[in-house]
């Protein structure tokens, strides 16, 4: 109820402030509005002043610059400011509205507590940093246990003599072929290097500047991506089936 609220607030103010004219006429609606604003402002102490000042400015613009400073003479269509409210409660200039719920915090313990917390964090960080990071284990190089099963070991098959001979001769042919291939490749590389050197010599004779520019490294070569050739060309008008991929790589954490 509005009236009862007003009375309790008045009684509270009475206790705190002391001097309070008893035969005091209040606009009930106004006071309820004020109370509501006051309750909103209880949570934000420092802003009460700013809000009050803002409200003051509005009131000043609306009613020709007149701000109430005494509670008795109020007009029905004028608004109250929080500063007025504070003067009603006879608060000093720098004080905020007295808060009931929060106890006063001491100023000395706070920075010490924060420092202690920070030191603890730093100690923990140092301990963790001392441990070197571990490499992610590579699944390729770990043989699965199911392959180490003893029951899987078999004896190698017994081959006839011709087969062994055929295999030995095949190995020799293959190694000869690979040797030829390697020699050809080495020759190719050598010829390429020689051709390059010859070209650079000729270029040097032509102009020194171009030669220097040619020797410099190629900046555009760096992020080089090459796709391998494929077995077969892409199929024309191929409709790939609808589906999706999902990455299920195991994430390791230390």
């Amino acid at each position, binding site marked *: 109820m509005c009236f009862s609220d007003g009375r309790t607030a008045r009684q509270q103010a009475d206790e705190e402030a002391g001097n309070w004219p008893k035969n005091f006429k209040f606009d009930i609606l106004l006071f309820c509005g004020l109370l509501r604003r006051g309750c909103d402002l209880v949570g934000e102490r420092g802003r009460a002043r700013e809000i009050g000042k803002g409200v003051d400015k509005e009131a000043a613009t609306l009613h020709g610059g007149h701000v109430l400073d005494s509670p008795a003479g109020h007009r029905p269509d004028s608004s109250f400011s929080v500063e007025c409210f504070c003067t009603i409660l006879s608060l000093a200039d720098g004080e905020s509205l007295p808060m009931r719920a929060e106890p006063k915090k001491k100023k000395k313990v706070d920075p010490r507590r924060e420092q202690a917390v920070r030191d603890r964090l730093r100690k923990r960080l140092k301990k963790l940093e001392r441990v070197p990071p571990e490499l992610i284990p590579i699944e*390729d190089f770990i043989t699965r246990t199911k392959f180490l099963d003893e029951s899987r070991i078999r004896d190698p098959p017994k081959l006839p003599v011709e087969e062994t001979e055929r295999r030995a001769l095949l190995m020799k042919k293959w190694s000869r072929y690979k040797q030829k291939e390697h020699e050809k490749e080495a020759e190719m590389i050598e010829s390429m290097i020689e051709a390059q050197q010859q070209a650079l010599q000729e270029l040097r004779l032509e102009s020194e500047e171009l030669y220097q520019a040619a020797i410099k*490294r190629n900046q555009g070569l760096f992020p080089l991506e090459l796709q391998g050739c494929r077995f077969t060309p892409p199929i024309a008008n191929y409709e790939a089936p609808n589906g999706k991929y999902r990455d299920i790589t195991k994430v390791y954490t230390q």
Partner: protein
Amino acid sequence: AGNNLASERHYRSMPTHGIGKYKYLLPREVPRKKREKLKMKQLKPGTDTEYGVLNIQLNGYDMTLVEHYIQYIHRLCNQLKIRVEESYAMPTKSTEFSVLQEQGTKMNMEGVIQSHERIVQVSGLSSLLAPIVVEVLQTNQPEGVQLCIKEHTEADFNARFKARPELEGLMAQIN
């Protein structure tokens, strides 16, 4: 008073000094430090290349092809006297792929593919040899193996290590 105890100790002048020692007979074990240090950042001179540290990355689904190719590259670099810093493998990536069923909207789990990655770290590649090497690699590149030559960065180096969420959380808290 303490004379009894003193006579039991093997004092330095006595012939029994050091009677229980045996560790000097065992082979010396060097303590192994597993910390790998990067920071081989080479200067980038303009004229003579020496490209700095390059990473040759090979990606593929067939592990045998990838492995053999990386061995081939390593041998080639040895032959051409290109300095190989490291040759390592990156963790395998498993991909689960599912295909939409023809009759309904359900996804049918088809299978799991594993993609393998190997890296050869090479430093001091000269500008004259670089295009030759690239051409040779290209001619010998097997099917299904993707080649990628990049510069080595610290991010690449850190990608090999396990993630440390606690450390990162603490760092975030402090800052």
